[in-house]
């Protein structure tokens, strides 16, 4: 396999300027698509319509009364008590959260009790439920206005994992609400001389708090398209390498190889080896370039980047297997039709696998088909890694990708013509 691998790598190296130009074109595509279709990816369109159950165990009026009673029994002056009472009435936290949710056009909030909300979640009638715990108003007002206590009990967001993209948006909303509450608290306290203390506070931990949902990170359009376009770039590279087999067949180079007594598998695996390397390098170049241009993954850990390299290695193996399959196909189909057929295959799997448009906006059946394409499956693995940062949760997708590779290698071996039939 060594000579074949070196030869194919050398040929690809000789065509490095073409590859580089293509890589730059793909980078430009990432920029264009990242800007123009950011709303598709960043979950602000109507396809993200969601119904959210509000399980409000808090009682605003009694919380407010309890707060007023507390300040009445304090040593504060009557003017200060009146001022704090007024502020408390204007800043009832649970009420504010519900008002924010109601103001978002793609969120429909419905008050429910705990059991009904759980049942509705199981039945997929709602996307998520938000629990506002008992005593939330009192605890939050005490912390906000009196700097008393540890803050409110946590608002809990419960969701079905399958709705994770919508949940991600909802989580952003809750997160933003809490940040606003915390910021306001910091400003209030700054006016009362505790500027330093509050400006240094971790805003997400001080007041109210929130339940983090399995460490989901939001996905940006540039992140999405960096991977979607890089995947398409490598598919096109696989096609280019496979189509070289047409010339090798036409010019009888392949026959010359056979006459040497070399096993055809060495020829196929040579192509696979070279495309593995080039895919890895091209993909890595696109990610690195995008990282510098768009600051794709700020403050990500070393573990995240190692995981990314690991997934990229697996993906490159998958492209290598696909190249073997494409190469075998070019020996089976007519020379004049080969380019068209391979392009068609790439277009179809590209569309189904979300390489041209975000998978979220595609119909469910296309999403299902896309999950079984090498590009679709790989894209979902990359996205999962970006959002969850957890390799263990990707075991099943990895196994599926491995299975897909094996199937493609077996198919390429079966399709590759036997001796005397080339």
């Amino acid at each position, binding site marked *: 396999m060594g000579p074949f691998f070196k030869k194919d790598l050398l040929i690809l190296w000789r065509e490095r300027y073409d590859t580089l130009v293509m890589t730059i074109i793909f980078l430009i595509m990432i920029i264009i698509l990242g800007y123009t279709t950011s709303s598709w990816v960043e979950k602000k369109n109507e396809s993200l319509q969601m119904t959210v159950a509000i399980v409000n165990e808090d009682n605003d009026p009694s919380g407010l009364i309890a707060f007023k009673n507390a300040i009445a029994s304090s040593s504060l002056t009557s003017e200060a008590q009146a001022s704090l009472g007024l502020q408390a009435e204007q800043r009832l936290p649970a009420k504010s959260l519900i008002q924010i949710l109601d103001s978002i056009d793609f969120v429909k909030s419905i008050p429910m009790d705990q059991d009904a909300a759980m049942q509705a979640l199981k039945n997929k009638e709602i996307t998520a439920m938000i629990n506002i715990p008992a005593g939330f108003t009192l605890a939050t007002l005490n912390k906000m206005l009196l700097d008393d206590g540890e803050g409110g009990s946590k608002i809990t967001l419960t969701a079905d994992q399958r709705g994770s993209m919508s949940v991600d948006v909802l989580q952003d909303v809750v997160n933003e609400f809490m940040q606003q509450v915390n910021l306001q608290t910091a400003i209030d306290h700054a006016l009362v001389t505790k500027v330093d203390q509050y400006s240094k506070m971790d805003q997400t931990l001080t007041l109210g708090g929130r339940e983090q949902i399995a460490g989901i990170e939001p996905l940006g359009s540039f992140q999405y398209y960096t991977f979607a376009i890089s995947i398409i770039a490598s598919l096109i590279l696989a096609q280019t390498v496979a189509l070289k087999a047409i010339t090798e067949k036409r010019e009888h180079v392949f*026959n010359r190889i056979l006459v040497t007594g070399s096993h055809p598998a060495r020829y196929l695996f040579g192509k696979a080896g070279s495309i593995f390397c080039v895919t890895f390098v091209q993909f890595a170049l696109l990610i690195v370039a995008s990282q510098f241009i768009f600051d794709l993954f700020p403050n990500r850990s070393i573990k995240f980047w190692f995981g990314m390299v690991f997934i990229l290695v697996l993906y490159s193996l998958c492209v290598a297997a696909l190249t073997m399959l494409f190469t075998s196909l070019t020996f089976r189909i007519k020379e004049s039709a080969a380019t068209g057929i391979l392009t068609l295959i790439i277009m179809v799997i590209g569309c189904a696998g979300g390489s041209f448009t975000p998978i979220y906006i595609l119909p469910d059946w296309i999403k299902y088909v896309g999950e079984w394409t090498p590009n679709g499956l790989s894209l979902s693995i990359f996205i999962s890694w970006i959002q969850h940062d957890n390799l263990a949760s990707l075991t099943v997708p990895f196994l599926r990708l491995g299975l897909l590779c094996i199937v493609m290698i077996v198919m390429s071996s079966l399709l590759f013509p036997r*001796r005397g039939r080339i």
Partner: protein
Amino acid sequence: MLETIELRKVFKGKTAVEEVSLYLEKGESVGLLGPNGAGKSTTISMISSLLLPTSGDVRLNGKSVVKNPQDIRKVLGVVPQEIALYNELSAYENLKFFGRIYKLKGNHLESKIQEVLEMVGLRERQKELIKAFSGGMKRRINIAAALLHDPQIVIMDEPTVGIDPQSRNHILETVRLLNREKGTTVLYTSHYMEEVEQLCNRMYIMDHGQIIASGTQDELRRILSGEDTLLIQLNEPSPELVQELLVLDPVRQVEETESGLKLIVTKQSGILAHVVQVAERLSVQIVNINVYTPSLEDVFLQLTGRKLRD
């Protein structure tokens, strides 16, 4: 050493090769002649184990090549009609790749590369990319790639098609060197009779998928031993003269040439007088007449009814 036994190949109901039986003795240089579509390349593909015959067998030292293709692949070098090289690689890189898949390594591979480059006269230009070479230079590297592993048998499929005279001479010289000095067995196919006449001891003539004649040059010429060839130069073309001459009994074949006519006639006295009479009657002026012994080209024309390069 190598023989084919009633080789037959049928493609989609069309017979490309019909019961071809030929043999090559060790150290021989054998020509395989035939016009386009005669079945030469198909025969070569079957001999080199690239194509399975529909029926028949190819035997190397008595062993079936069809059943054991690896045997012939070790001792065979094939120079295909096409330039079977990687255009994006240099001459040296191409030879190194093919050498390595012939399992040559290290210094031995390096010395073989330099040896074959020297043989084809391109050692100085080994670092240049194939795509920068002229057609003739590409063909020379095409030959070099088939010689790296010191094959006992070399099959050359029209190695001089479409090249400049310098490269052609170089290739012919290389074949001579291989056969006469190194003792390599050569099967040489060509459109050019003069090449085969220069290089080959024996030859097979193929047409329409069959071998229609075979033997040494003298044996083949003897097919036309009772004939002479007349080359008649005319002042102008005359189709009427062709028709009239064909009626004459001794005239076996008439072919129009650029300057007149070429006749194959049975050896008999008086034929010249008949030709002159007919020309006079038709008011056609004969500028010149040459009489000579038929060439292998004439033999081919006689056997197939068409010229080798048709």
